[in-house]
């Protein structure tokens, strides 16, 4: 079959209509579309763009400082530090949480500093937060601020946020020591949840932290919250 004849360029409004209709359960489509052309990338990284993902939101601007941190710590993409600093922004970080278990963050280079997106919920505007993980409609945030709980589970749609209790001393987050990771998930025990709306109205969630010790053991901290009840436990394994 001969290749299709080239289309005359579509106006921005029309391209946006198309991008908006990429399937909501496949955010990778959006990532790939961002690389099709400068026009498409500009549209996708525009704060006014309506992301085609049901539980999605523009997150933070990635600053020069963040890029530096990223280069230092490139192996762990969930630990990209993000700080709100429009004046020195070099790229936009979009955190997308999807109905599937896989949350993600994408970083899209931008050519100009961006203003805070109108759709950005107030809680996200606070400085000093970095996103650890995003799944099932929630985001696990971390801060080193002294006045706040270090970890917060945040629902970007409703702006509800829930501070996690202090971690056991053994697991205190201390910068670069060991390799850290964390995840927030829906805690639906029956496996019947479609994860489309489970983060609203205080649905149950669980948070898991891992720390890889230098001696090859793994610490695992699990916290489950169902309504107002919390259960937490620390497990340590040398035979992970």
């Amino acid at each position, binding site marked *: 079959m001969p290749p299709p004849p080239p*289309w*005359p360029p579509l106006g921005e409004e029309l391209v946006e209509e198309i991008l908006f209709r990429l*399937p909501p359960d496949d955010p990778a*489509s959006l990532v*790939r579309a961002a690389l099709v052309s400068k026009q498409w990338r500009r549209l996708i990284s525009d704060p006014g763009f309506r992301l085609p993902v049901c539980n999605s939101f523009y997150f933070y601007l990635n600053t020069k400082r963040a890029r530096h941190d990223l280069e230092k710590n490139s192996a762990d993409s969930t630990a990209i530090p993000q700080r709100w600093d429009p004046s020195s922004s070099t790229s936009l970080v979009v955190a997308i949480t999807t109905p599937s278990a896989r949350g*993600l963050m994408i970083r899209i280079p931008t050519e100009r500093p961006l203003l805070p997106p109108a759709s950005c919920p107030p809680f996200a505007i606070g400085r000093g937060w970095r996103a650890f993980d995003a799944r099932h409609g929630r985001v696990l945030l971390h801060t080193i601020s002294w006045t706040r709980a270090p970890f917060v589970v945040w629902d970007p749609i409703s702006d509800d946020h829930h501070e996690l209790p202090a971690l056991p001393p053994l697991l205190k987050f201390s910068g670069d020591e060991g390799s850290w990771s964390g995840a927030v998930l829906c805690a639906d025990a029956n496996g019947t949840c479609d994860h489309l709306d489970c983060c609203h109205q205080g649905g149950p969630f669980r948070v898991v932290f891992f720390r890889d010790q230098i001696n090859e053991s793994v610490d695992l901290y699990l916290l489950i919250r169902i309504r107002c009840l919390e259960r937490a436990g620390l497990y340590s394994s040398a035979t992970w």
Partner: protein
Amino acid sequence: MAAPESGDGNNGAARMVTLISSDNTRFEVEAAAASLSQTLQLTILDGGGGGGDGIPLPNVDSATLSKVLEYCIKHAPAAANGGAPNATAVDRAELERFDNEFVNIDQSVLYSLIMAAHNLEIEGLQSLVAKKVADMIKGKSPMEIRRTLGFPDPTPEEQAEMNAHMLEYGWAYE
């Protein structure tokens, strides 16, 4: 406030209007169907398009206009019911089947439809064709999307940027 005589086709003979394509073909169609176009709606409400006059559409050729009107005629009854909240499941399934068939078309026709739906502001059709293009590009790599839509080959600078992006977001290309 009492609405003026709107001339909808609920009482016997439906009001007809004439549309004239860029290549001077005349299409006679029910006013209710043509009114799916926001652009045409005002003219038709003002009484235009009737009799021997006709509404000229210099941006739409006859092949595209006949396709557009096929859509409008099919969707007009549901639109007249205010989006058909009381339509049966059968009706809705039938419209959906029609829509799927309708966009199963050559890419050049699809492009003309996108432009026509945009110029004539036919909301449902705009949405339908945009969804079709989104379906065409989903699951494809940036290069494949470019080829699908007939973009020119990327400049070396664009190519380098694509390669870097693919390295960084390998998961998106699995």
